[in-house]
């Protein structure tokens, strides 16, 4: 995380303390970090995967709609966010690494500092079926 912008560093510090799944991506779409809550939902550990290209995450999580049809990459909130630098939201199904199918609600927001430089994105997602 050293060498990244202060906004990315702050994002990571906060993500590390939250119980909501969070992932942080750089402008090129590399996942720089995902927190323990995301590890639990995805069924993989950041210390095992390390920095991961987003394409690899999609390949393993296989996002689909309610009918089981693959979501076009350009409709994924994180892709929209990284491509257009705008927030985005969508609900869809994913397959965790341990094979469970989970319907998630996902929001991605661009990390654009006050200097107006786009430095990455934060993705927050949660299991829609999960109750308190």
């Amino acid at each position, binding site marked *: 995380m050293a060498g990244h912008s*202060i*906004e990315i560093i*702050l*994002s990571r*510090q*906060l993500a590390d*303390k*939250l*119980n*909501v799944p969070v992932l942080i991506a750089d402008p090129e779409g590399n996942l720089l970090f995902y927190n*323990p809550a995301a590890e639990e939902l995805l069924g993989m550990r950041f210390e095992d995967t390390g920095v991961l290209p987003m394409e690899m995450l999609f390949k393993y999580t296989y996002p689909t709609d309610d009918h089981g049809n693959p979501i076009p990459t350009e409709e994924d909130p994180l892709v929209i966010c990284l491509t*257009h*630098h*705008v*927030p985005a*939201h969508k609900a869809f199904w994913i397959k965790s690494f341990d094979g469970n199918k989970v319907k998630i*609600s996902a*929001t991605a*927001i*661009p*990390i*654009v*500092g*006050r200097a*107006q430089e786009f430095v990455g994105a934060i993705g*927050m997602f*949660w299991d829609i079926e*999960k*109750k*308190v």
Partner: protein
Amino acid sequence: MAGHAIEVILSRQLADSLNIPVFIVDPEGNLLFYNAPAEELLGRRFEDTGEMPMEEWSTSFYPTDADGTPIPSDKIPLVSSIKNQMPAHNNFWINSFDGRSVNISATAIPIVGRAGKFVGAMALFWDTESKV
């Protein structure tokens, strides 16, 4: 912000560095902070409104659906997140303090630290009509 949990402080630090509107509330729903982009969207500076109880901020913006019908408070993501300590998302209309009607998309997440203590919530929202 002094005297609040570290997660709330980090949330504020991050909110202060983002160009997306952000609200931060305490566990009782009292509004602790909103950032500069939120000030712009809402049409009033935080230093002019100060901290607000939930009953006030949840109604001040007159949240409605597309037909102009007031939405129940439990459909406001930040209210839902405080009550259920779960993430929530919704699209709805609000009236800004300066009289504009704005359609927003809002995601709220509980701020629950690793120790499992609920210390507040934050909402990220955006004008759905706003383009890059």
